[in-house]
């Protein structure tokens, strides 16, 4: 019996990752296609997950496809696009009940894999491309997604900050693409791009669950025909920052968003990567971190104040939601916390507790099927031999010196404020 082990097997043109575990009552099969972020393809790639869910040759409408998924005991099909570092990833994920929990059904996995094959390799076509009507409809859907994103002020502020901060780097591209590209995309051009993607993107397939005796690998191998596996190129290197910039924009908001963008120069495969996570845990990753304690608890300036590591480009972000008239104060308190990190103003005990929390967080992530997949996929993106288990061990070894070294290496690039239109006092009476 194999339990909680990852087997990675290089097949012709792709890699398959088998994650054996008895933790879950379902089986996950996921295809991850990845290539470099590029302005030319980003909108097509953002559109594809929507179009591919509109039907297959045997189930030619979205509703027919969805009803077939329901028949398979509510198998869940999920497709999305995301960006990690300077990579663009399209994930196609199918999750189904493990047939051992269902008394009446024996071939659920086979049927589900067949359906997945149809979705990926026999989509609904018209002539030499995707169904033009469906493509037009999905362009609208993508457009409304782009519009709706401006309503989530936290994510909008983050997007705007990255656009300013990484102005001349691929990382600034919006993961949902651009409105102006949509006009020239049609069923044919999108299908052509899709064929290219199927062959040329790097492909990693994951199978997760109690799959020991189920022959998953052979079943999947039968559906894939590819020649070569793409090797990922590493992201553009950090530019030396001469001085940081501050960008202030306004919107109709009651709460202002104050975000900071830093450059760490540390990516997943870096030997300082575990120390960067310990740094982040002390600085702003947890409710016990400096940001939360000082910005929120001590000064009551915000409901949230936190930081997050970007692992594949070497960035660090700080997020806070504040009353608009508290900008100066919040800014200086946040900068002050970073200064304290550089001078080592934290105890050995703080470090130990932070490590324990990080380890707890990582282990918990491994108790969730998607979390398990994403943690293992980090290795692929980082082109690294560092497994999640090894990463956990290395976190436990990090020293105070290593944390302050990391802190000293982190440079402030951009401060971004999205504030209310009347500028200052909007504090409720």
């Amino acid at each position, binding site marked *: 019996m194999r339990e909680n082990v990852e087997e990675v097997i290089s097949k012709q043109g792709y890699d398959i990752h088998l994650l054996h575990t008895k933790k879950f009552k379902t089986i996950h099969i996921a295809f991850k296609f990845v290539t470099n972020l590029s302005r030319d393809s980003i909108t097509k790639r953002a559109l594809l997950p929507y179009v591919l869910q509109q039907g297959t040759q045997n189930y030619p409408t979205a*509703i027919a496809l969805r009803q077939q998924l329901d028949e398979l005991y*509510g198998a869940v099909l999920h497709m999305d696009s995301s960006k990690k570092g300077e990579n663009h990833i399209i994930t196609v994920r199918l999750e189904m*009940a493990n047939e051992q929990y269902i008394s009446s059904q024996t071939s659920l996995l086979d049927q589900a894999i067949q359906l997945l094959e149809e979705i990926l390799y026999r989509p609904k076509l018209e002539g030499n491309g995707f169904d033009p009507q469906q493509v037009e409809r999905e362009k609208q859907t993508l457009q409304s997604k782009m519009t709706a994103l401006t309503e989530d002020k936290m994510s909008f502020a983050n997007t705007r900050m990255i656009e300013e901060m990484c102005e001349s780097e691929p990382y600034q591209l919006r993961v949902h693409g651009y409105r102006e590209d949509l006009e020239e995309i049609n069923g044919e051009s999108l299908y052509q791009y899709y064929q290219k993607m199927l062959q040329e993107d790097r492909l990693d397939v994951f199978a997760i669950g109690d799959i020991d005796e189920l022959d998953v690998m052979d079943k999947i191998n039968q559906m894939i025909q590819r020649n070569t596996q793409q090797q990922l190129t590493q992201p553009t290197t950090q530019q030396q920052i001469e001085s940081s910039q501050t960008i202030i924009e306004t919107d109709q908001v009651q709460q202002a968003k104050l975000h900071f963008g830093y450059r760490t120069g540390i990516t997943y495969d870096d030997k300082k990567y575990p120390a960067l996570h310990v740094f982040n845990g002390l600085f702003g990753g*947890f409710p016990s971190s400096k940001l939360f304690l000082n910005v929120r608890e001590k000064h009551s300036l915000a409901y949230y104040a936190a930081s997050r590591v970007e692992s594949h480009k070497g960035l660090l972000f700080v997020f806070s939601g504040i009353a608009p008239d508290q900008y100066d104060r919040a800014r200086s308190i946040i900068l002050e916390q970073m200064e304290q990190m550089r001078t080592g103003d934290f105890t050995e005990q703080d470090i130990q*507790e932070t490590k*324990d929390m990080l380890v707890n967080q990582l282990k918990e992530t491994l108790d969730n099927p998607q979390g398990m997949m994403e943690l293992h996929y980090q290795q692929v993106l980082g082109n690294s031999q560092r497994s999640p288990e090894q990463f956990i061990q290395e976190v436990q070894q990090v020293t105070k010196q290593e944390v302050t070294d990391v802190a000293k290496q982190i440079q402030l690039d951009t401060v971004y404020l999205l504030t209310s239109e009347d500028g200052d006092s909007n504090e409720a009476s």
Partner: protein
Amino acid sequence: MKRHNYEQLNETIYSDQLSNGLRVHILPKPEMTKAYAIFTTNYGSIDQSFVPIKQSESITVPDGIAHFLEHKMFEKEDRDVFQDFSKRGASANAYTSFTKTAYLFSATAEVKENLRTLLNFVQDPYFSEESVEKEKGIIEQEIQMYNDQPDWRAFFGTIKSMYQYHPVQIDIAGTVDSIQNITKDDLYTCYHTFYHPSNMVLFIAGNVDPEEIGAFVRENQENKNFEPAEPLKRQFPSEPKAVAEKEKRIDMPVAVPKALVGLKETDLPEDPKEFVKKEWFIDMILDYLFSKSGIEYKKLYEEGLIDQSFSYENHLERNFGFTIIGGNTEDPEGLAENIQHSLLRLKEQKLDEESFQRLQRKKLGQTLRAMNSLEFMANQYTHYDMLGVDFFETIQWLEDLHYQELNQFLHDWIDESRIATCIVQSNQS
């Protein structure tokens, strides 16, 4: 402790009611790395008017107090309890809903010590005038953050349009004005009335030894003194069956307008099995109409009235209940009208046996999938326990449902007077 085995699901629950009235449930999951514990009181934002413990006159407390109390539980005279969890590598959290306040943690080590912290901090309040005043600034920012979220405003607007007097229409966090009136004494009154062990449920799931943890909880509780349990006297205004306002409009800056349709539930069954059946039926009908495989979803999507944000939810409690359907749309009036029509047409409709079975299979698969999560199982089990129902048993009931019963239900479910609409739009655009 009583041991209950659910063969088909391959789960076992250990249950106990302690002498102080606390109900304890333990779900061992040895395959998982972590443990999750949630300590819930049957007390939420709707419990505004009640007779305080050991008193005879009813009082009404300021809006948002249950949520305020939840925030303040973490602060003790000498420390912040978050740090106690952090020190042991655990992550803690809490939330307040209409009917519950819950405190929880997850940990991959030192489960017993973390559990001790959880029990002790929830059962040892410390409020001071000064700390109550300080918290107002933080909660103000939380309220403002929600005020900037159009989805939240639309959701609450719909509830307000349905309910005239029932306190479900009060914002869970209160308003910036209402929280100013909260005092230390109010907090103690609410605390002593609603945090009595006999009004609470403790659920522990994950990598634990049930006998050992059960004994540990028992000992912890036996060493504390509580007043004898008194039946709680909560007061709710009588609420008309019809909605308060047929159509509500909210003017706020949104990129895409939103339309939600709310259906107010009345006549909620006393009998636990009937209550749960009603939930399943509503769930299945909504799925049949409005899920991605739903017949109405297809029409709305093809007519361009909805996008990916379209969703529906149903919420039933002992003395209120509602269904909310809708999302972003360029034509809010058109969408609202279409949803209303499809609900009103249900009276004349029948579901065929084939569709019924498809939905039944889908629900079963969905439940198995959700059971991958310890949090889901703990939260659902607690929710149903407070309604007097065994959650794992309800899954059995699902398989017993018959489509003719559902058709009977369909016939009587909807009444036009119980339907309301809420539209969020920017008047400037």
